[in-house]
Every structure is written in C-alpha cells, then in structure tokens.
C-alpha cells in the first residue's frame, strides 16, 4: 500500500506540491488527472525519490520511504514508468527488460514470464532494438521493464501520450487486468479521459499542487460538468 501524506515538494526553491494526500491500496486502480503544470509529474518524482520531500511523508506498507534513495524504493516495490517512456533506443527489447531485471533486489537472472503474458508483443520483438518499435510497443516495453522487478506499486506517467487511440484502449485494458490479477496497485497519471474511465476505479483531480477532488470513475461520465470544471476542457 502506498500512502502519501501532506507532501510538499518542488524544484530548487519553487514549491509545486502543497500538502498532497494520496493512498493506493494493493490491486487498486487510481488515476490522477489534472491540467498541464499542476504538479502530477512532480508528485510522481517525489514518490520515486527523484525529488526531495520537503515535508510530509511517503509510506510504502509500514515503511517510511521519503528519505530513501530512488534505487532503494525500486528494490522495495515501486515501479515507475516515466513520461516519454525512458527506454534505451539502441538496446534490444530483451536488453531493456534485462536492465530492469538486474536493478531489482532479487537479482534474478531470467525474465519473469508474466511480463510476456500481459504484453506478448515484447516476446515477439525481443531481439528488435527499442528505437525501431512503434509508439504503442515502446510503451508496453516501458511498462514491462518496470514489471520485471515484480513491484507492488506501479506509477505510470501519461502512458497514452503520442499513441493512437485503439492502442491506448488496449494498454488500459491490459493494465486493468494486471492490477486485478496480480494485486499490483497502479497509480496512473493521465489527461486522457477515455483511457482513465476504461482503466481506473477511483479518480483524483490535481490543481495547483493540491488534490482538489476525489470520486469514483463512474462520476466522470455521470456527473455533468465535472471534467469541464476540473480539467478546463
């Protein structure tokens, strides 16, 4: 279980996050929505340790992790799929997955098969360089790489960015299945409403570094004006 309590963080001396509270239970599918520049990616970076937590706390299970280095958070179960995918384009699919494998605490020498079961295209293209994959395949590789370390919490930062809609839907379905079947809690950072409604069970809205609204995913379609009011679209 991931619990973020009253987190304040930012870049240098510029405060971006204002006492953010988030909780993701095992197997729960949470989507964090918000306009550009509202602090969604900053929150992800603070959780994975790429930005310092100025005040508040980040807990994983019973452990307080906000002073831990990023690598230790990964070891203890946080998987992160950054915006822009963060792949190594000159390496093959298998080598990209291997990087995620070697970095995990378990130091396994073999790739776990369940990654290929959820994302079979990675098996088909395992000897192809990542740079030559399509956008959707690259996104699946990025998710797969985070999964080889067998995380308990998976954070995805705008995985639908630059991907055609039918592939976005397919990836959203696979993530939903993954969370349901494996018990991995997933925090999805998104602006794509269709992908969010397809994937999530709970929605959080972020505005100016604060969580301003929390609701069930069905409210996105049933509550008139909610999306327009909170996302300004």
């Amino acid at each position, binding site marked *: 279980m991931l619990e973020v309590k009253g987190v304040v963080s930012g870049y240098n001396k510029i405060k971006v996050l204002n006492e953010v509270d988030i909780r993701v239970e095992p197997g729960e599918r949470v989507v964090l929505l918000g306009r550009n520049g509202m602090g969604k990616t900053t929150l992800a970076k603070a959780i994975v340790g*790429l930005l310092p937590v100025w005040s508040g706390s980040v807990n994983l299970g019973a452990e307080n992790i906000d002073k831990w280095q990023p690598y230790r958070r990964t070891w203890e179960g946080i998987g992160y799929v950054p915006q822009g995918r963060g792949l190594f384009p000159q390496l093959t699919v298998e080598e990209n997955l291997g990087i995620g494998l070697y970095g995990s605490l378990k130091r396994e020498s073999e790739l776990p*098969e*369940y990654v290929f079961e959820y994302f079979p295209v990675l098996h088909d293209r395992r000897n192809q360089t990542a740079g030559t994959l399509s956008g959707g395949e690259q996104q699946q590789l990025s998710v797969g790489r985070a999964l080889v*370390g067998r995380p308990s919490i998976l954070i995805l930062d705008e995985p639908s960015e630059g991907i055609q809609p039918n592939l976005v839907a397919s990836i959203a379905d696979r993530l939903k299945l993954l969370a349901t*079947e494996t018990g991995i809690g997933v925090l999805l950072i998104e602006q794509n409403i269709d992908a969010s409604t397809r994937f999530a069970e709970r929605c959080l809205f972020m505005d100016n570094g604060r969580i301003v609204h929390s609701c069930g995913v069905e409210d996105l379609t049933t509550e008139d004006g909610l999306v327009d009011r909170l996302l300004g679209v």
Partner: protein
Amino acid sequence: MTVIDVNVEQDSTVEVSKGKNGLVRTGGAVAALVGVLAILPSVLSPFNLIFAAQILIYATVALSLQLLWGRAGQLSFGQAAFFGIGAYSYAIVGTRYDIGGWLSVGIAVAVPVLMAFVLGYFLFFGKVRDAYFSIVTLAFVLIANQVVISWRSVTGGDTGLTRVPGLVLPFGAFSIDFSTRNGRYYLAATVLLVGLLVLLWVRSSSFGLVLEAIRDDENRAAFLGYNTSWYLTAAFTLSAAIAGLAGGMFASVSTLAAPDMLDQFLSIQILTWVAIGGRNYLAGALVGTVIMRILSDQISSFLTDSWPLVVGLFFIIVVLAFPQGIVGELTRIKNRNVARLGGRRANVSPK
C-alpha cells in the same frame, strides 16, 4: 517488502541471451590484435620496439579513460594522475626498497585504486557530476603533480626517479624477465591485453550496461533500481586500477618516473587520443592513441617546440569532421551500408 502473488507460475522463465555474433566478432578482433602484437618485434628496429611498447601502454591508459568517459559518461582530467601515481609507486618501491616482482605490480595498482576509491566515493556520493567532476579531477592532477615535484626526498623532485628496475615475474619454479628489450615490449603488450580483456568483460557484463544507462540518464538508472553513486565509484576505481597498472609498467619499460607522467598536459593528451579515436568504442581508444602518438612523434622531430599546436589543430579538425571519432565514423559508414543491404538493426548512436 510486499510480495506480489502473480497467478502465473513463478518458475516459468525465459533466459536472457547474449549476442553470439558479437562474441565471435570480438574474439576475432582480439586474435587479430594478438597476431599484430606478436609480429611487431620481428619487423621493428630495437628503438622503434621500445617506442611501440610505450604506445601500447599509453593505449592502455586511454582504454581506462574510455571506460570512465565513453561508457560511464564522466569526463575526467585526472587520468594522468593515476597513471603517474602508479608509475611513482612502482619506481619508489623498486629504487628505495628494492621491492620487485608481483608485489611491485600490486603496489602500482593498489595505491591509485585506494586514492581513486576515496576521491570517487566523496565525489559521487556528494553528487558531484559533469563539469564539476571534471574540474575536481583537473585539480587532483595539479595537486598530484605539485606533490611529486615538492616531495624531493622521495620522488626525486623535478628530475624524477631514474634507474627504475625492470620487472621480473616469478611463476612457481620459473620466472619471466621483462627487463630485456624484447621483454619490455612483451610486458607492454601483456598490459594492453589485460586491460583490454577486463574492459571487454565490462562491456559485455550487466555492470557495463548499467554504466551506459547512467551515462544516458542517471535518474532513469536510479529508478530502475541502481545505486548510481556506487556504480560510478566502482567505474572510477577500476579505471584508476588500469591506469595505475599502465603507469607502473611504463616506469618499468622506460626505467624512469618523471613529473610529466602525471601532469595536466598528459591528461589532456589522453583525452584527445580517446576523442579522436571515438570515445564510445574500445577500438577508438586504441586507434586514437596509435595515430596521435605516431603523429606527435613525427611532427615533434622537426617542430620541436610548436608540435602541440599542430597536433591541437589536427584534433580540432578531426573532432569537427567526425564528432563520434574515427572508429565512430567507420561504424556509421558500415551501419549505413548494412542498412542499404536490408539490415534490420537501427543505427542509433549513444547520447
């Protein structure tokens, strides 16, 4: 740690394979290099053989910088410091304490390794990176040079240490004498091959892959589960070990240790050799060193004072024309031809 219970058999796995074609190609290249190294003593004059021995050792120190700069992305101006510290360590124990054999080799490696580990630990765990790292390593080589010049009673000051004994290595009941003219050459060739084999191992290992990941994006490597500061400290220390070994053996081959073995000018030269050859390639360090050492030697024979200007101009032209170095350019041409012939592997240069 939370254990994830996935509803897929845990022992159902897929092996991570290594590229066999790459292994065959690398093996072939190393065999060709060994062949060339074996032929040289029979075709070179005694004077040129010692010159070749020095080039081979310089190539080894260039390889050590390739590890740090090309693979790990940390530009160090301090490589000459570890080279010189290795040379002085070997020379001091040989001339002042009559220590030789394996112990002298061990000391030539151990002293720079210890210094590099301490320096690297504080730099990398102190989050000193990029230009700041380069500046600190430059300061380190300046300090090391000043210490050697000032500590006259031990280092011989400006004149350095002469009559450094050659290396004789015992192997059980036998021993190999590396102090003869051919022996010195074979020592240099052995040092190069040892350094090359270690770095080939690094290149093919997960350690090397992680260093490349850190070079491309350190944050990305960190959230993939790597303690990047440890990896960089390890790379810095290994790089110093190879440079120190090369330095110690250079003192044995040339029978002296002098302050110009650990000054900023040598550091910059090493950097130019790697840059001209191609910093992303092991072969680049070798090719760059051979070309630049021979070029420097030829030009300095008739431009005794101004040869660095000509070499510097050559460096600028090559870097402008081939930013990835000579080997990088040759690789690019090869990849382009492969792509024309329908090859599938993309030519994506490392950052």
